[in-house]
């Protein structure tokens, strides 16, 4: 049974209220997003700014409600259960944001930040709070010496570990990590990721791992799934290595080529897909075709007039991936280069 399932989620925002003579418009931030996480699943959601990742994260974590669609936690429809039950279910999905500065109360020590949720939700008996706090701290690679520290006395990486430990106080089944390491130096990211990985391995926690960086998604969701989003829709969905090695959607291929490779030679020898434009579609417009068609170098008439459905297509390794592109079968997108021997 899925620990978290989102089906046919739509989310609209009302924008443009100020000009009196113009009617307010609806901005379609999410369109028909469906996703399921079983226990221990890792799904990486990838796409550029504005494609709806944070909106999805907030809905998945119960911080905001969808305009339509169904959310099930442990198989139970959040709308069909009592409010108390819904609150309890929602606690099993915790969110970690990009900015650990904003997430922590500057007047609370690490000990206070971690003990408060333990007490409020009665996760452990009063006498065991300190032991549990220590256990959580060790889990994220911190120790006794950090207990009495305030957020401003910690580095960005340490702060994000405290946020992770706090998310874990209530033993969630799912952690939604919205750009959780994006604000942290590249050299420090892996320590945070490995903490998350360890929690996954030891506790079976599932992750909705949100990032704009396909390289990071590949690393964290190496045995999981990548979902590529554009303009509020899932464009490609499949096993991580299949999606990375042989993208079937032109947008995935463009996201892939945008990741800089430290090897100067690899950057020069790539055959690049020309990007026609860098402008995002206007999300207040009704869709008339593929949202990506304005930027897609392969767009044909049909792409402008018919919204492509997300459908199964053979992936790079033969296994199916889901792709929302009319031309997925016929396009010859750049595939994984033959392996280069490094000296």
């Amino acid at each position: 049974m899925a620990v978290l399932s989102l089906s046919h989620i739509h989310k609209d925002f009302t924008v443009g209220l100020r000009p009196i003579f113009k009617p307010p418009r609806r901005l379609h931030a999410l369109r028909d997003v469906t996703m399921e996480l079983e226990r221990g699943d890792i799904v990486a959601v990838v796409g550029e700014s504005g494609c709806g990742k944070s909106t999805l994260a907030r809905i998945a974590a119960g911080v905001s409600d969808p305009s339509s669609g169904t959310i099930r936690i442990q198989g139970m429809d959040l709308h069909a259960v009592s409010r108390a039950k819904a609150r309890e279910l929602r606690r099993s999905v915790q969110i970690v944001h990009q900015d650990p500065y904003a997430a922590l109360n500057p007047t609370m020590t690490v000990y206070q930040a971690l003990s408060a949720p333990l007490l409020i939700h009665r996760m452990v008996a009063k006498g065991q709070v300190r032991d549990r706090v220590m256990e959580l701290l060790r889990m994220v690679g911190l120790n006794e010496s950090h207990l009495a520290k305030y957020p401003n006395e910690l580095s960005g990486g340490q702060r994000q570990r405290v946020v992770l430990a706090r998310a874990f106080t209530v033993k969630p089944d799912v952690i939604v990590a919205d750009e959780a390491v994006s604000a942290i130096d590249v050299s420090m990211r892996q320590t945070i990721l490995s903490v998350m990985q360890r929690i996954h391995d030891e506790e079976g926690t599932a992750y909705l791992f949100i990032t704009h960086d396909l390289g990071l998604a590949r690393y964290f969701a190496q045995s999981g799934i990548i979902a590529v989003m554009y303009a509020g829709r899932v464009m490609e969905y499949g096993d991580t290595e299949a999606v990375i090695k042989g993208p079937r959607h032109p947008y995935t291929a463009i996201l892939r080529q945008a990741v800089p490779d430290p090897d100067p030679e690899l950057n020069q020898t790539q055959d690049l897909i020309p990007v026609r434009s860098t402008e995002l579609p206007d999300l207040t417009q009704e869709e008339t075709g593929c949202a990506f068609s304005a930027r897609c170098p392969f767009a044909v008439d049909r792409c402008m007039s018919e919204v492509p459905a997300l459908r199964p297509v053979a992936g790079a390794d033969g296994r199916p991936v889901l792709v929302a592109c009319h031309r997925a079968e016929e396009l010859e997108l750049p595939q994984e280069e033959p392996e280069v021997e490094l000296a």
Partner: protein
Amino acid sequence: MARQHPITTEASSGAGALEITGLSVEYVTKRSRTRVIDNLTLTLQPDEMLGVVGESGCGKSTLAYSIMRMIPPPGRPVAGAIRFGRHGDLLSVPELYMNRLRGDRIAMIFQGAQSVFNPVRRIGRQVEDVFQAHGKDRRKGLERARELLKATQLDPGRVLKSYPHEMSGGMRQRVAIAMALLLDPEILILDEPTSALDVVSQAAILELLVEIRQRFHVSLIFITHDFAVVSSHADRIAVMYAGHIVEIGRADEIFRVPRHPYTKGLIQAIPNIRGPLRDIRAMDGEPPDLSKEIVGCPFAPRCPEVMDACRSYKPELLTIAPGHEAACIRAAMAEAQ
């Protein structure tokens, strides 16, 4: 007023575009004295793109501020010189002269600055403002702006009519780069220009820089904590740690044969997308507290290859191959053999 300090226009001597020698910068308060840049020497070649890479807190922004002579108080340069061709030492030219150089001969895109623009003025008006402020022809300014904006892959006509908030973060940053080149500077410093952007916007910026270099003859200093960003696009890379340059050389060489363990660490931390998935590794620990005295190599406490000598002896930059220098005892010993 400004006429007392007209910018020198004679041809330069043909040396580096910028020569920093023995630069030290300190933040001094009653309680502490923090040496953020320590005896740093660096030459920027004409028309080159130099990548400056290192973790947060290692002094990259302070280096940039030093060149602009805009170190925020209580920081100040305590030693060294920054020679800028015919203009002399930037640390000692009169403030009025420096004022004229800023933006005109040396421009900078500041870290985290999504706000360089005036939010209530159209971009076109802001272009005119720049030219007016420097006593130049506004109409010529718009012409040049159009030419520069073409390189950004955006429609110049539309951009000039837009307000800053009407553009996405990535577009704004590209427009900011175009604006920084309005007065045809010789040097453009970009401090983490892509760190707040997504990878697609970042790729567009990197492409823009490639284009700009070919068309407008400008030396670029590109500062970042992400090694992959500069190694893929820069000619040379300077790796900074704790206020020092610990390794410098051609980008391809630094990537292929990094000699400083810190550089190796930065490279090993990058998740790769091409080729089989590599394991990435984080570096243990964090950069040292610069307000405390550092004995020996500043990287020694985190170094996986540390030797006893590293804890007492501070390595200097040594030439390892032509144009490739590293400040590491082990690298120097390997070279000597």
